[in-house]
């Protein structure tokens, strides 16, 4: 994941949930309440914009959204892992 894309994801999260604090690549976003169910649709559209690909809501696996690293691997082609 490029720094630019990571910044956009973190900005999204912190705008909606300023109390979440610092997030690392392997922090559990669901346990940390980083994105709640009312914000999740908008989060999905952000990932579509960053990845340039549409995401089928019926193909969603919650594990793909559990950490920033998982999001990177599934939607942004794993650039952050390096």
């Amino acid at each position, binding site marked *: 994941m490029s720094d630019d894309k990571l910044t956009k994801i973190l900005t999204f999260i912190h705008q909606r949930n300023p109390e979440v604090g610092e997030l690392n690549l392997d922090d559990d976003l*669901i346990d940390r*309440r*980083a*994105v*709640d*169910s*009312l*914000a*999740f*649709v*908008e989060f*999905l*559209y952000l990932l*579509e*914009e960053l990845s340039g690909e*549409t995401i*089928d*809501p*019926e193909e*969603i696996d*919650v594990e793909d*959204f559990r950490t920033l690293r998982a999001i990177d691997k599934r939607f942004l082609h794993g650039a952050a892992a390096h």
Partner: protein
Amino acid sequence: MPTTVKPVKLDLARLEAMAESDYYNPYTIFDWPESLGTDRPWMSEDLVTLAGTEEWGKLTREQQLALTRFEAVNFFSLNVHGIRELLSEVVLRIHTKTYADASEFLHHFIGEENEHMWFFGTFCLKYGGKVYPAVPQVGPGRIEGVGDAATELVIFARILIFEELVDYFNARMATDDSLPPIAQEINRVHHQDESRHVAFGRHLFTQLLDQVKESRPEDIPVLANYLETYLEYSVRSLYNPAVYRDAGLDQPLELRRRLLEHPARHAAHNAILNRTRKFLARNGLQVQGASA
């Protein structure tokens, strides 16, 4: 379901009698044509998500009509998913101590909502070839850190908000002669049934709110903020990039963003949500400066 919520006291005899006298067989009363044609709108043109913006004027007439078709299927798909979710909550509560007074009416409610889901789903599949999928619930779906009464109130407040929002559209489209008769008719029938459901929902809402005020008044501002966020979430769900993609419009995500920022759409959102916001405000759940 929390067990500390006190039984609600409701006199629903009038609504139950109306549900019985208004009863119809949804599987036989509608005349479903084989196809609807593409030369007329399927959704009222002033209700589509581009209405009032320059984006609408940029489209050819064919594109405008295509957009009304996909927006109609999206609107009815939102109804299908909204009903699916509310039914699952209501079924969990029928014939429990808290809702004993409402159980008779809830049988009508569940039956009618199931029928609504059937005719909305039928429209989507028969004329649109699909139901637009719902985005799954990921992350906490309920407010944390509030009492049982507030948690229970949120369930029924969400149902009420959903019903009042879709009723705004149903009421308009029920009498829009530019639409195919089947589209008018299912909007009309839904509007008729929902008037009872909204009346019930408001009674229940005020009962549960009284319990919150009595037991944990500190939950009131938390509820007010949550419900305003839920109102905004609900209205944003009308803007589906998949609809714009299906209608052949360019850059659906960018279009969605422009529309959501457009003053004409803000005015449209305020009109859609006005009735519900006034109800919440009358009950002390106003968010200062709230607008969609």
